């Protein structure tokens, strides 16, 4: 099945840009994570991104899924599946890191009840790395319009 070119090409450009950003983030997080595993003393964050081996791997997977949707350029409607999955994964990870930041905030609150001083550090550094500044949280928001457009396209193309 083919999808109309005018609508699909805009989606592909958006997806390729998002996919490339995810790939860059994924490579940086994964490489730093791998380096940290073997050389914990000399390890350092790349591009100020979190040192996260599996998180980086997951970002790479999302990036690859977005790029897998590039075949939509030729009008292949099946490629919409890759864009859908990439958006779902992007939202899952964005939500996950956001929940982790919230959990860090709750932990700080519990610590305050126990007599410790309240700080806002959990917002910018914590279990999810740079807290609310974790790029995957913001990329999930950026991927929402793409997800909406993909669903709209599937409806227009009468995908059941």
């Amino acid at each position, binding site marked *: 099945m083919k999808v109309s070119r005018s609508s699909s090409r805009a989606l592909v450009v958006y997806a390729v840009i998002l996919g490339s950003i995810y790939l860059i983030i994924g490579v940086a997080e994964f490489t730093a994570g791998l380096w940290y595993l073997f050389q914990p003393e000399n390890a350092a964050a790349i591009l100020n991104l979190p040192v996260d081996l*599996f998180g980086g791997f997951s970002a790479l997977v999302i990036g690859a899924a977005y790029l897998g949707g590039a075949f939509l350029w030729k009008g292949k409607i099946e490629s919409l599946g890759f864009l859908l999955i990439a958006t779902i994964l992007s939202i899952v990870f964005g939500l*996950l890191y956001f929940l982790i930041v919230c959990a860090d905030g709750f932990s700080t609150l519990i610590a305050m009840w126990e007599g410790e001083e309240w700080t806002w550090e959990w917002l910018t550094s914590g279990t999810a790395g740079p807290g609310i500044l974790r790029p995957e949280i913001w990329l999930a928001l950026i991927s929402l319009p793409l997800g909406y457009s993909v669903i709209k396209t599937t409806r227009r193309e009468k995908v059941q």
Partner: protein
Amino acid sequence: MSEKIKELLGEEAEVKLAEKRYEVISEILPKVLKGERPLTRSDLLDKAFLNKYLGIPIFLALWWALFRFTFDVSAPLSDLIDIVFGKLGEISSTYIPNEQLASFVADGLIGGLGAVLVFIPPIFFLFFGLSILEDSGYLARAAFVVDRVMYKLGLHGKSFIPMLLGFGCNIPGIMATRTIDKEEDRILTILVNPLMSCSARLPVYVFIGGAVLGEYAAAGVYSMYFLGIGLAVLMALLFRKVIPYFKGKPSAFILELPMYAMPTLRSTLTHMWERGVLFLKKAGTIILLATIVIWALSAYPWEPVHAGSEPRIEASYIGAFGHILEPIFRPLGFDWRAAVALFFGFVAKEIVVDTFGVLGLGGAEELRQVFTLVTGLAFMAFTLIYIPCLATIGIIYRETNSWKWTIFTVIYGLILAYLAASLIVAVGGLLGY
């Protein structure tokens, strides 16, 4: 009989039947339906989820998300329970005048049971995530994707569902092997199923990992699940090569994939509750009983002067028993308390944490005096691999109807656990940890 059919048809009867069934369906459909077959959203999603190259990486990424959700998001709730039990312990020590009764309530019931109950949040979170994956229809796809690898490595594709169930509890996992027709494939799946990390092991990983692995804690827990899968596949491959009974190729795997569905909050919460409540029941029965026994063994012979202090525990029955076990575990860097915890973990894996709690090692600080990063990881691996719990052994016997296979599972598990833990300690030492 099945071999004869296979010879005649050139492939397995099940595969042939499925092929024919779909042939008939595709002959009928064009006669009753006009136009092109409509594309569904499930078809679109399957393009990516079942993709030859992306299918497995997507599965791994989702699994990682599940573990971070289980481990990191539930953490403050566990902290809350811990604080409540800590306060209860303080109150009971202060207000109960009888020293032995105070020790029983504070060190035994609250210290031991409390150490286990703090894992209610991660266990419920794990089941919540698993229910979403199951209700959405993704888990069936995961089975399909993993089958390609499993078949190459000598495991039957149908083994994936029992293995997956094993992540919840090994007992339903082993019982689910009844769906495997070929007896050899079924027994092989039963033998490796205990290597799937059941939810009872999760408290041990979270407990040890949280204390000694620091920022590696989530990665440590995640790696235990993959160590289990890796070892299960490796052992299946080895058994198929070495044990004549298992020689030959596994039979083919046919699975009809359900349509994707949006999981509802109600059904997800119901599934989570149904599975999670088993942990609560266990805590109120077996774990409570074990807590009382372990406390009694650690408190007697009673020495009032050193009440609650370590010397009293060292001189107790459990201390004496632990020192007998210690030489076996010393090469792995485990002291007598770790050895005793592993011994009692034979009854149920949660009791490992319970034992540490009763022995006064309920906190991260205390645990860091017993384990280093490497020995902590080795302890987690040992807990994953060694003898499954008593109930699992019972079910292995019932399902195989053979003491030979039951004893074999226990012995190979112990040897493999020792080898894997030794390897972790050796590699960790080489890497300078």
